[in-house]
């Protein structure tokens, strides 16, 4: 995946330079190598500088594009890299198995965890299999079942959030998409184990919060988390789908915004140039931050873990009462 590089609009100058470097590298034979080496090295420095400039001041809309980047590591990549002996579990025990949400048990730093993760897929075949990361009711009911299972065995839960939103369609409506999401949120509050949610890409509305009523909400530096997609917001409020950049600005959906609002507890920094360029390093950093929070939560009693979640969400958006 990572080699089939996809560039974003605003990365065009960087893309051009990188192409030139490739060109130079490929045409250089041993005789010319020395001359070229210097130029390649200069160009590479230039690229670094441009990445830094670009990525240090991404606009909200650019963040949206980075968060959705096809080469960005997906849940499966995080699980493959961070989880040993992953045992995928399947099914909602009532209707089906929806692979838009994958989950299962595995070791994270030698410690049992339950992973519950939204997966978008990487190519057409896997995107279809994973329902483009948009879960149906049975997906949320599977998530609920796995969270309940983890709770029963006192196993911490890590959810990875990466979805454009819950599946909008007849099947979803007739099987109770609303009920499934609501019950999945409720399940989060019932848990007496550590529960950490990590927004790794796109945190889309109700489909995202279903897996994020957690003790900790962590966000990748260039991830987003929003009540509605910028496109959807633009078409409703501006009556113009093309106004998505304005909407992205207005919605305050970046990790940095959410941290300011107190919704995100910590931002996981991405290497300069973004997770889609530095997949392994990004995953490693995410693993480190998750491990830190998990260690903190593991010090709490089961009751306190539940109380911690309640306190966090009760306090959120509330002005401290006087008297």
């Amino acid at each position, binding site marked *: 995946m990572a080699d089939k590089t996809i560039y974003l609009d605003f990365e065009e100058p960087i893309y051009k330079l990188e192409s030139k470097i490739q060109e130079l590298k490929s045409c250089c034979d041993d005789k010319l190598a020395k001359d070229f080496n210097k130029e390649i090295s200069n160009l590479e420095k230039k690229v670094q500088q441009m990445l830094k400039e670009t990525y240090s001041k991404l606009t909200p809309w650019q963040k949206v594009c980075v968060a959705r980047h096809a080469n960005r590591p997906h849940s499966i990549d995080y699980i493959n890299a961070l989880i040993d002996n992953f045992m995928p579990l399947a099914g909602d025990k009532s209707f089906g198995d929806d692979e838009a949400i994958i989950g299962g048990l595995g070791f994270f730093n030698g410690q049992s965890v339950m992973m519950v993760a939204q997966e978008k897929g990487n190519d057409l075949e896997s995107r279809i299999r994973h329902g483009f990361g948009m879960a149906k009711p049975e997906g949320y009911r599977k998530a609920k079942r796995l969270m309940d299972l983890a709770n029963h065995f006192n196993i911490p839960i890590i959810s990875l959030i990466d979805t454009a939103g819950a599946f*909008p369609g*007849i099947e979803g409506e007739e099987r*109770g998409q609303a009920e499934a999401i*609501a019950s999945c949120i409720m399940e989060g509050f019932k848990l007496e184990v550590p529960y950490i949610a990590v927004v790794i890409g796109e945190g889309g509305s109700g489909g995202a919060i279903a897996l994020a009523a957690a003790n900790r909400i962590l966000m990748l530096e260039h991830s987003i988390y929003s*009540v509605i997609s910028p496109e959807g917001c633009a078409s409703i409020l501006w009556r113009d789908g093309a106004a998505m950049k304005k909407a992205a600005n*207005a919605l305050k959906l970046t990790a940095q*915004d959410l941290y300011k609002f107190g919704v995100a507890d910590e931002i996981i920094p991405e290497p300069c140039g973004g997770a889609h360029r530095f997949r392994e390093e990004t995953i490693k950093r995410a693993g480190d931050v998750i491990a830190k929070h998990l260690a903190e939560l593991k010090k709490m009693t089961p009751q306190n873990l539940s109380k911690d979640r*309640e306190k966090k969400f009760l306090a959120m958006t509330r002005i401290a009462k006087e008297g």
Partner: protein
Amino acid sequence: MNWLLDYVRPKLSVAKTEKDVPDNLWDKCPQCDAMIYGQELAKNLYVCPHCGYHLYLRPRKRLNMLFDDSEYTYLETPKVKEDPLNFKDTKDYRSKLKSAREKTKFDEAFVAAYGKMGGHGVVVGVMNFNFIGGSMGIAVGEGIVQAAEFAIKHHMPLILVTASGGARMQEGILSLMQMARTTLAVKLLKDKHLPYIVVLTNPTTGGVSASFAMLGDITIAEPDALIAFAGARVIKETIKADLPAGFQKAEYLKKHGMVDMIVDRKDLREKLICLLNLLSNTFVKGE
């Protein structure tokens, strides 16, 4: 667990009340197009006397209809941060709020009151669809949380009457968080075994349906009410096909297992009292 025992009337100032809209006008039924005289419509609880269509019932009328002798006390509208995103689309959010307040005479899209219903102390919360589409922002979410907290404090059941287009976009992620916060409110009620009854009215959609509205111990819907997660327009665009007849209507939801009963507005109070009677007369634990 009898939530009737320690009913204490709390001291709270009466909130602003919705002004009566004049009843001496004619209104058109959106379903059968019949012209109905305002007073007749009001007398009929805003149900079309010709076709039975349930028109929107404003919060004050809803509360009047539900409480014994139409007597109740509003809970205070919670103080919350206004326009936390400094949101501006084609016009700014603050002006939208202002005109919604002028239009509805309410501070926000949710109002709660306590009083007696069939003699039972009870908290009733009503969403105001005329207030920016009944959308749920911080104030609505906090209103619901505080209604639940009040119910818990005074050991009363909570009845919520929903009507909402979904989340309040203009409050961004903070409106989305109200899905979690209102779900938590329901969880706190359940922890105390206090009854939580939902009355779904037309329309109840989006983030409201996907949180507290679908978590009732018992779920009632008004006839023909639209109850949905995703909007029919969005679904139609996605599947590029027509939707089944009655899609996302109360009867459809009942058929699909999401709703306990569909109750005509004229019977609603009586059915709610019956449920309260049944849930309050609980088995007394043995020695």
